[in-house]
């Protein structure tokens, strides 16, 4: 039940804050903030209570199932393991910060804004928790509409175009995934007689290689669109740039991670053989993303657009690591998801703060801001360094582990990806140089970080440092997951009494061929 609460808390928060906005704007903001903090608290409690006892491999901390549409074998099935837990913590952490960051930025229709923001968070939490493929698709779509509104209503000048593009791209990918889900459902049903959308049953679906490849591609398209990987990345710069700060933070920090999560949770375990066949291509896409994204990032005149393209580059590492098929790379991928969420989220918040002060995102109109805003400069420096992969900060750990892991799988790709780190240094330093150093032509007198902004930035700095210095916090939690990469075993699903056609199956395991 506790898993259901994790999804329901932001949903009710969304409704309440919308209702409250009719009477009191401040109350509406507070409700949104408090409900997300409650979620964060709940997740933290779960984390702490589970960190204490050593857990065996393939252990699911929580599992909850209720029949929903038994006719189709669909159930409300939520389950949580280390990966979900870590992602949920990130979700609520960044979610709460996005409410804070919008405190002054959003000036109209505040109630509706917070409704959408919290609803996106609820959808994302659902995606990270659900173990029923239909429900997964459902939450996948639930994230969409509120995000569309966030970009389309509160965004910058070209918001409608960007919102459209985002919506159509993601929806197209999602529908292909739906087809693949249904294909899997029917193949599983035809082969085993059990028609169910339940993840744990579908895990070991026997099928022909060619079929598996097609289905795998169906899933993969949806996830790489969201990730995004070349050539499906074109929605991202528009959406990130035009979205309000909170929207960009949620997009970069959380929505992209749902794509990565989908690959880890669904594509690889459901189609181990097919993914393994496809791995070189996926790694190639990843490397192409790293290099091309980095190069595009370097040439952007617009600060938010620049940061957006760095996401393309960083997410390339995710694709590279996910298809390397070894523990090290997987751990690196999860670390990368978290670290990128924090660092890019922070950079977007800084870009938002700059926009609030200067009303421009043009790099050419900035410069020499350090004397005016030393504190903000320092914070920016930290996250720029994180973005370029400085040891001691979270991203370094992540990228290092991914590269180590992928070296075992593919030498050439890894060498190419390493070049990406150099590009990352170049574009990251360009941010510092263009914004904070150089000549200040206009002699801006700008206020430095205020109390609220300190409240936002301080936790982010702490977390990114913590991740860099003591990554074991995350790595220790996801151990369970990593073990199941090699040996997938279904948990002991307590059978719902009336879950339609679903019949109990015994534990079963499957071993991936390791890359040599």
């Amino acid at each position, binding site marked *: 039940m506790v898993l259901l609460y994790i999804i329901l808390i932001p949903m009710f928060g969304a409704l309440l804050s919308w209702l409250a906005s009719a009477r009191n704007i401040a109350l509406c903001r507070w409700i949104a903030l408090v409900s997300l903090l409650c979620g964060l608290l709940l997740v933290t409690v779960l984390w702490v209570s589970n960190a204490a006892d050593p857990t065996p491999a393939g252990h699911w901390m929580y599992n909850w199932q209720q029949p929903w549409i038994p006719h189709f074998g669909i159930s409300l099935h939520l389950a949580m393991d280390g990966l979900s837990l870590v992602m949920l913590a990130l979700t609520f952490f960044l979610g709460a910060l996005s409410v804070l960051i919008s405190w002054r930025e959003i000036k109209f229709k505040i109630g509706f804004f917070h409704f959408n923001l919290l609803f996106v968070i609820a959808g994302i939490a659902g995606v990270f928790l659900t173990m029923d493929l239909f429900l997964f698709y*459902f939450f996948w*779509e639930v994230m969409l509409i509120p995000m569309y509104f966030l970009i389309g209503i509160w965004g910058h000048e070209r918001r409608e175009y960007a919102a459209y593009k985002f919506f159509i791209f993601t929806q197209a990918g999602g529908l292909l995934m739906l087809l693949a889900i249904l294909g899997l459902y029917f193949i599983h049903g035809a082969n085993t007689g059990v028609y169910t959308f339940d993840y744990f049953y579908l895990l070991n679906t026997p099928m022909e290689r060619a079929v598996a490849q097609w289905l795998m591609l169906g899933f993969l398209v949806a996830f790489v669109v969201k990730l995004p990987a070349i050539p499906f990345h074109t929605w991202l710069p528009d959406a990130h740039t035009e979205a309000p700060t909170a929207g960009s933070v949620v997009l970069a920090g959380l929505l992209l991670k749902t794509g990565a999560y989908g690959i880890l949770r669904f594509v690889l375990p459901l189609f181990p053989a097919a993914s393994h066949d496809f791995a070189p291509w996926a790694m190639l896409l990843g490397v192409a993303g790293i290099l091309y994204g980095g190069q595009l990032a370097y040439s952007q005149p617009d600060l938010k657009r620049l940061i957006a393209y760095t996401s393309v580059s960083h997410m390339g590492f995710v694709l590279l690591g996910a298809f390397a098929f070894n523990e090290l790379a997987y751990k690196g991928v999860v670390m990368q998801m978290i670290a990128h969420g924090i660092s890019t989220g922070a950079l977007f918040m800084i870009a938002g703060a700059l926009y609030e002060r200067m009303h421009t995102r043009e790099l050419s109109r900035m410069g020499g801001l350090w004397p005016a805003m030393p504190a903000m400069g320092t914070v920016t420096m930290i996250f720029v360094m994180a973005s370029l992969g400085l040891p001691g900060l979270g991203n370094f750990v992540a990228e290092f582990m991914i590269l180590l892991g992928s070296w075992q799988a593919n030498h050439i790709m890894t060498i190419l990806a390493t070049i990406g780190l150099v590009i990352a240094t170049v574009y990251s330093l360009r941010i510092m140089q263009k914004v904070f150093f150089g000549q200040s032509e206009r002699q801006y007198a700008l206020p430095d970080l205020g109390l609220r902004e300190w409240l936002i930035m301080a936790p982010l700095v702490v977390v990114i440092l913590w991740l860099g210095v003591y990554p074991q916090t995350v790595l220790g939690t996801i151990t369970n997951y990593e073990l199941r990469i090699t040996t997938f075993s279904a948990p002991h699903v307590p059978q719902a009494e009336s879950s339609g056609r679903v019949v109990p199956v015994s534990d079963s395991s499957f071993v991936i061929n390791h890359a040599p």
Partner: protein
Amino acid sequence: MTFEDLLSLGPLFNICGAAVLCMLLVAIWRNHRLIYYVTLVAFALALMSVVPVATLLPHTIAPLIVIDMFALFNSGAIVGSGLIIVLLSYNYFEEREERKEEYYLLLLLATAGALVLVISRHFMSFFLGLEMLSISLYGLIAYLRARQRSDEAGIKYLILAALSSAFLLFGMALVYGFTGHMDFPGIGAYLRQAGTFPLPVIAGFGLMLIGIGFKLGIVPFHMWAPDIYEGAPLPVAAFVATISKGGVLVVLIRFYQDIDGRNYTMLWWILAITAIASMFVGNLLALTQQNIKRMLAYSSIAHLGYLLVAFLSDTQSGLEAIAFYLTAYFPTSIGAFGVLIVMSSSVQDAETVEDYRGLFWRYPWVALVFTVMLLSLAGIPLTAGFIGKFYIVMAGVDGHHWFLLLMLVINSVIGLYYYMRVVAMMFRTTDTSQRIFIKPSLPLAGNITLGLIVMLLVGLGVYPTAMMQLIQQMMTLIK
């Protein structure tokens, strides 16, 4: 005629009786409100009379009529939709200058026609029902005859519908001439026995398909739809979009089943091509429409294409998918027109996309309702439309028609674009002070009806199980 016969025709008798009553009332005392209530009560009674019929099924009144679960379910859907349309009609017509009373009379007759269609299993009853529907629609479409586009639409529909009926009739004659049967099972039995497919029968089926295709508004017989939707009074457009098409689709399904359509690959391919063409033409043409009525017209062409995909899967789940999709599509479509109705003033219909600019900031309630309708049409989760589309995809996968499904997916994406365009327009925040907007009538009854429809759609989207169970029980055709 036995008592059981009478009882099993309850919905039809209620509607027909009310039509007679309305005619008399118009002669004695012309009063809009009175006629409205009589019609409303008639529809409510008809809906209630659906329930007891369930105990008698399946019931045949040879040779014309068959009442099985399938027919009963569709009767219920038709009467229910009719009820919603009537609820939305009062204010719309009250505000307009023409004599209002005959509208209800024609609406009752048209509904009766549709009810005959869903229980017919014979060319006679089929044609009778179809003509009853069509002829009432001539009057309904041109009802606001003082308005320019209304009589244009009426004449257009009159000519085209008459022409298509002629095709249908000629096709029936050919089929009858060669098979010697006018009842569907008889034709099916003859074809099975003969083993071959004589040319005149093929020609007959082809001609019938033209007639049916016209009524369904599928490509290439769709040309009338946008003009009729644009010109007809809004409640009538809702009627054409839902009840009229649904009734004919039911006959098509029954006919296809009775003649074992699955055995004739050519027939399947013709329908498949029609389905693909309907999806593409409907969606692509809807993209550029500035008039919401026309957009809805093209979108309904596309939706018929989706329904044909389920139809062509030729499985039990396909039948269930059609039933569920119609259950979702009827209220959604009527609701979309309902929004147009409550947003219209007595002088002007709110029909261009521009009329809805920034609606959310002016009338948040109506905008939210409209958003739900559009999202349901687009098939976004949490709405009935999503489950409906999901059901269709399930049926397609079940029948292994991957190509059709791919077309459906592509079209769903195209469809998203124009539905979202309207949604985006409603949430647009640009300065709206310079424009003079239509002052909407926003009648209370209309708003309540819309609220109920929204509840129904979201309810079906979140908890479809109950409806699915009902449909599973109901989707048995008599053999």
